[in-house]
């Protein structure tokens, strides 16, 4: 239990910065350049990681 908790706490800060970079690039692009492609990119990012997070959630949270 304690071990799984420690690993879960570690996972968020390690994943946060690299995961945030595409959002920042997409968000800045969408606000600076008029055009749909940054919005498409953000939508792609959202759908891919929503799917991945949904699929992997159980393995991170479940006690094994």
């Amino acid at each position: 239990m304690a071990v799984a908790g420690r690993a879960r706490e570690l996972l968020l800060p390690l994943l946060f910065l690299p995961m945030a970079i595409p959002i920042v690039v997409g968000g800045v692009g969408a606000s600076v350049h008029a055009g749909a492609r940054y919005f498409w990119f953000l939508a792609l990012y959202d759908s891919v990681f929503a799917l991945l997070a949904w699929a992997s959630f159980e393995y991170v949270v479940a006690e094994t």
Partner: protein
Amino acid sequence: MATVKAALPWVTAVLFAAAIALIFFYVPTDADQGFSQRIFYFHVPIALTAYACFGWGAWKALRVLWKGDEQADLESYVAIHQGVVFGALTLLTGSIWARASWGHWWLWSEDQLVLFLVLFLFYCAYFMLRFSVDAGPSRANMSAVYALFGVVLIPISFLAIRLAKGLIHPVVFNLQGPQMAGSQFFTFCVAFAAMLSLFATLYSVELAGKRIDAHIRDLRHLLA
């Protein structure tokens, strides 16, 4: 399988000899950058091999989660370890090339360089995660999820920086295919095959070593 493994170092040696011969004696000197452009045939294959390592590691990670394959955890770890080694070599060769071609060892304004550094550090942090948790199925799952996030992050990040254009780092592969002459592309392919077989050799050697390690630990445990 055993004969393939035994042949791997020799295949690697032959491919490397061929690649070096092609790079220095066959391929024409670049009109724009001169002799220093030849490092391209090391730098790009090393970088692509690093991605292949991460991809292989993620495939093994998927096996851990999907099939509950316990062997795959160690295989995933070894592949990512090799990927970090190739990643460090990519940064090194890229830096040398940048110095020769742009006059700077490193440019923070270049998105592709910074992005590769971030991905490299992301995979360095994999070891931080892995070695701060006790061995077991929970560590295997955690490492596998991390490896999968990493491999999805690579194309997404590259898509992001391709959208935001204006780079001086050359882009060789685009939607129109490789932007190279035939002789260059051939040399590149041989160099890439050499790097991939180097990865396969190092991977099988490290994996065998790690398995022997685990076996000895088990035996010690039994004796104690």
